[in-house]
């Protein structure tokens, strides 16, 4: 994935762990924003409001 299928060695490991770290931060921020924007509407829809 992302051309890193065969990543190994020190450089490859830095890239792989870096991708995981960046994804974790992006997901935290991204899902946080989505929750703020769409959260209330989804709760209303689910609760039948």
């Amino acid at each position, binding site marked *: *994935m*992302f*051309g*890193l*299928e*065969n*990543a*190994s*060695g*020190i450089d*490859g*490991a*830095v890239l*792989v*762990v870096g*991708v*995981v*770290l960046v*994804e*974790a*931060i992006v*997901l*935290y921020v991204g*899902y946080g924003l989505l*929750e703020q924007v769409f959260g209330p509407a989804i*709760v209303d829809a*689910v*609760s*039948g*409001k």
Partner: protein
Amino acid sequence: MTMELFGVAASLLALFAGFGVLIGLLFGFFGMGGSFLVTPALMVMGYETDVAVASGLAFVFATSVIATLKHRDLGQVDYKLGVLMIAGTTAGIEVGKLGLHWLQDIGLADTVVSVIYVALLGGIGVFITYTATRGGGGGISHDAEGEGDLDDEDIPDVAKKIQSYRIPPMMSLRGGISVSLWLILAVAFATGLLSGFLGVGGGFIRMPALFYLIGVPVPVAVGTDLFEIVFSGGIGSFLYAIDGAVDLSIVVPLLAGSALGARLGASATDLVDEDEIKVYFGVMLLLGAVAVAIRKGGEFADVPVLQTVSLVVILGAAALVSGAVVVSSVRALRSEYGYATTTAD
């Protein structure tokens, strides 16, 4: 023709993202790390043992980073204890990794890791089911907000006995505790060994060890454990990634689904009392143990269909319990709204 995204089959990405949502929802709701279901599930799916362990460890690293961001800080951390533990844990992970590769070379890794997982999932499943049926909490999560120390009578005799060995050098920790450096390193090494060998965060061993064996207060144990997992998860992933064992086509979608599921699970705790359905969670872990055993039994007996049965059992159990969480939450939300409109009328 198979549709691909980023060079990976879209169906595989969807499978892992979906499984991630279930894992995140369950473990976000019950306040635990989900790693000890990820590695066995990957093994049940037929991945090589080192890939399952390495990818599980990378998943642990990412979820601990998100947990740290969520709490804005690591909580009450004893940094001296944390750094000492990182040293012991890193050594443990490396030994665990070497042991796994050695077992893989002689063709026994899958069997040994499977047997350990059957015992681990079975043990934790029995413990949670037992405590849930007796009305207990069944563990301490990173969301725990305890303030104090354990009462002396809560500490098991074996822990008191181990604490009484005062082999120098002695280290002074937060809260005026003095403990042997060797005990700290032994606890860290043991949990690192588990991480490196099984791909788990090890918090279910480390946290009880921190407050029972080392004697740190519960909030410090929780904060130091999270600090530990961020670093040891990162170091463990790195060590395995050097060998090319971390599979991003597993970790990336699994994490994307899990981070979403964890938000849903954490929100559901405001609506549903986790103790009411914790018994199902315990049963699900027991079914996880059964699934790993079925798969291994199928291999020995040369009955390939048991591979599919084990996959259905582990995914089905996760889907059923997370379904129960969602249904209970929706019911609670609707009754809350219904109650609000009734009283407003």
